[in-house]
């Protein structure tokens, strides 16, 4: 199993001008690793990070869009896999950190621990779906996630770790959204 903080650290080392959408625990670990204007926090309703990312990918076909999601979040919007599979944006990479719990809501288990998210994504029409359970294999996959035509889906098997400090108020503040928009306009 993978330490999510370590996974994000490896990913962050490759990030340049990509849009990175993140949510809940994936977001708090990401922002602790790399705080930058092109980070987008999926505010509002839980489960919609990939929908925000899809809109961003369509609006900015020249940029790669990463979505750093969670298993509990994805379960609240499973239909998104079918929508993404149908729209098939080439610049879209969806990584779901899986530890079988609603980390942000008290660590309760998700309803079904036998679910195979990569399999669900593949059957929903996202052919490039991967299930990764070692840091080394994730790191080896990063160039593919950055450069290969999408959509790409990754189920990242992570361990329950210590949560990074989080402040949704800080993540969602208007100044961040303005900086994000400005960074997009700057090219």
């Amino acid at each position: 199993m993978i330490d999510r903080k370590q996974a994000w650290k490896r990913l962050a080392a490759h990030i340049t001008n990509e849009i990175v959408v993140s949510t809940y625990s994936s977001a708090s670990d990401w922002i602790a690793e790399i705080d930058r204007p092109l980070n987008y926090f999926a505010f509002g309703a839980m489960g919609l990070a990939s929908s925000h990312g899809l809109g961003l990918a369509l609006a900015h076909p020249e940029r790669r869009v990463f979505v750093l999601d969670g298993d509990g979040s994805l379960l609240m919007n499973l239909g998104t896999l079918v929508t993404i599979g149908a729209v098939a944006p080439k610049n879209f990479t969806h990584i779901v950190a899986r530890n079988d719990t609603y980390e942000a809501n008290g660590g309760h288990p998700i309803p079904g621990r036998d679910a195979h998210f990569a399999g669900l994504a593949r059957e929903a029409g996202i052919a490039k779906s991967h299930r990764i359970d070692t840091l080394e294999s994730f790191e080896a996959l990063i160039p593919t996630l950055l450069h290969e035509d999408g959509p790409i889906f990754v189920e990242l098997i992570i361990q329950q770790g210590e949560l990074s400090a989080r402040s949704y108020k800080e993540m969602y503040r208007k100044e961040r959204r303005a900086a994000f928009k400005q960074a997009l306009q700057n090219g």
Partner: protein
Amino acid sequence: MSGGGAIMHAPAASPDKGEQAMDQAEAPLQGAAIIAAIKKAGVDYVLSVPDLHTSTGLLKPIAHDPDLKLIRVCKEDETLGIAAGLSYGDRRALILIQYTGFLYAMNAIRAMACEQSMPMCLMIGLLGKEPEKASRDSGRFGVRIIEPLLDVMGIAFHRIAQDADAGLIAPAIEAAYMQSKPVAFLIERRPVHA
């Protein structure tokens, strides 16, 4: 006060609403007029879950319109996230859903349209609304509560009941995007497709 018209926040009751509703019942609502208004507003994307009320008059012609990109989603709350993302690339979206979908997506609407004041343009089909009644007086509970819910959420709305009302759409979408605020269009009768 006509069935379509000014942005409404106040209760719609007026002394002659029954007579006006009867006028609406006799006037057509062409889907083509609504689609022309959407295009005039610079909408690029239509995000939709099918609604029987708008299926023939709007969704089917939109699906075949080369000027509009239709994204069919599985549940209505997806449309709010997609529209938010699109707005960061100056891409305008119309969310075309039934009132039941509006109710389903309420939490996403609360977050993105109300709390974050994103430019969310909702076109809501009032399936089953009786032509001779104002929606607030509908015998259908779900239809009856839509305007009061929009009021309490502070979302401006327009009633679209006849062709002339389509003229309200483009300026309202323009204002929504310029001022970063939500707007709703209530499709009060089933649009026809020539």
